[in-house]
């Protein structure tokens, strides 16, 4: 009899993108200016996926802004879309929210985690206190006031929203989907637990025995698919690997700001040059250039 063999979950960009379709609810990891799964985000734009509900990290970065600018997004679920010092408010987020062309699931970080916890635990909603008395339940239909059955005190019911797919950028994994973050991993675990399926893109693939050296470090156990993507969080940072590419982010923000003010040409140019024309991640990196990429190291 043939010895049973363990099945690798290693996939390609194409395999991963085949799982992402119009109208899905998709969670996108990372935080603020770090660790967004940009290889897959650019792939989603290139594929022309539409009407997504995107659950960003509790403080989403400009990866969500980019998806909005490319016309992929119907609804944004996050407490904020920001590039910090690079852009305090995502330009496309601001413009499309002001025009009413995207829906915003208004929340704060605590409320967003309460929502994800409800989704993880298969509960219809999770109670949360902060938010009572504010405008949030007036502008977000998934937040409803109710009475604590024990004390009668007003509470907020935060309705669960289940991501069908979660995409994350993780620093390393073996080919069985055992992902290990460098640094904290931000809120990636909460997104992973809430989702039906998780795809991780990684800086490097390591052998299983490397994972077993420090199993406590395994932050995403058994991702459904692993995609190799070194420099895959560019232009954002990837802890232990590279810092934010401030020059590239500035180029993006300038193009997005111009679009917000009515001049779409710089954004069209950015979109074509960096996202639509490269056929895959490697071609994207070639366009950014090795000199630029290798200037992003800590020392």
């Amino acid at each position, binding site marked *: 009899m043939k010895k049973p063999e363990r099945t690798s979950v290693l996939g390609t960009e194409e395999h991963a993108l085949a799982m992402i379709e119009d109208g899905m609810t998709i969670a996108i990891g990372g935080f603020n200016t770090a660790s967004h799964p940009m290889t897959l985000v650019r792939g989603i734009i290139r594929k022309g996926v539409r009407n997504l509900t995107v659950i960003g990290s509790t403080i989403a970065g400009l990866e969500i802004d980019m998806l909005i600018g490319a016309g992929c997004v119907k609804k944004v679920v996050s407490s904020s879309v*920001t590039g910090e010092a690079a852009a305090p*408010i995502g330009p496309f987020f601001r413009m499309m929210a002001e025009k009413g062309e995207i829906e915003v699931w208004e929340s704060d970080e605590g409320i967003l985690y309460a929502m994800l916890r409800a989704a993880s635990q298969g509960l219809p909603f999770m109670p949360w206190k902060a938010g009572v*008395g504010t405008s949030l339940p007036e502008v977000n239909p998934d937040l409803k006031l109710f009475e604590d059955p024990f004390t009668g005190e007003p509470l907020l019911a935060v309705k669960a929203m289940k991501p069908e797919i979660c995409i994350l950028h993780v620093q390393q994994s073996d080919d069985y989907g055992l992902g290990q973050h460098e640094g904290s991993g931000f809120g990636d675990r909460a997104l992973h637990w809430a989702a039906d399926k998780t795809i991780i893109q990684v800086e490097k693939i390591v052998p299983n025995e490397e994972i077993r050296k420090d199993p406590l470090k395994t932050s995403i156990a058994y991702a459904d698919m692993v995609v190799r993507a070194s420099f895959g969080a560019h232009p954002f940072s990837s802890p232990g690997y590279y810092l934010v590419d401030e020059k590239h982010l500035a180029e993006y923000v300038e193009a997005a700001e111009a679009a917000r003010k009515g001049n779409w040409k710089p954004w069209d140019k950015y979109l074509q040059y960096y996202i639509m024309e490269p056929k895959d991640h490697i071609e994207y990196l070639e366009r950014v250039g090795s000199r630029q990429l290798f200037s992003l190291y800590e020392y």
Partner: protein
Amino acid sequence: MVANDYTHKEFISNYIAQRLQDYDHIFVGANLPVPRTGALLAHFTHAPNMKVSIGLVRANLLNERELEPHKFSTDYRMQRWAEAITVHDNVFEKIRDTITVFFIGGIQVDKFGNTNLIGIGKDYKHLDFRGPGTLGTLSCSYYCDRYYIFVESHSRRLFVDKCDFISVFGHGEGGDHRQRLGLARYNAGPECVITPLCIMDFEPETKRARLKSVHPWSSVDEVVENTGFKLIIPEQVPVTEGPTNEALETIRSRIDLEGLLQ
């Protein structure tokens, strides 16, 4: 000795530092240099046991001679100071383990200390200005022991009679509104509002904003002129207390190395 060659930003950092106590748990972000400096100044001068989260790094920084600033709160180089790392979703499992004192901002602040980070306009679907969003301000300000409203401008556009939207509940419609909603479990609302012109606190009965002190470079008239709601003005309005030479020296030599407060 009281200094006189401070910048306005150094002055306000020092005011913030004086509000902070030993053993406070505080979160220090990257892109608000004034509160960052205030927190670290307190840590270096009178709060040696302060639990500092700098980005997601937890650290005691007393032995760090100099603290180089970082542009992004996700900058992993801060990890060199770490004695623990916070997994972000864990913060919200028990906020009070990471944050007992907090600073919030706003694009609008009203006379009852309610604040707005959502947007400006009458119609939520078609805002005149889409704000940055609520971030963690709502949950953190509910759970902490003390929170402060900190703004970097002082205008009638910012200080309004009523916020278009409320993202953080201060005193609602005043009086005991906060208690009635069960929101006073951990704190009784904002301690004060720190602006570039003055400090406001809240009148204990009505919970309406009241002028507490004016900064040395400003005046009661200037504050009233630039405030869009009717501020309670006590008979005596003191001048906000300024930094000592020693505090300034600490700011300049150990914390504000890039001169962001100059």
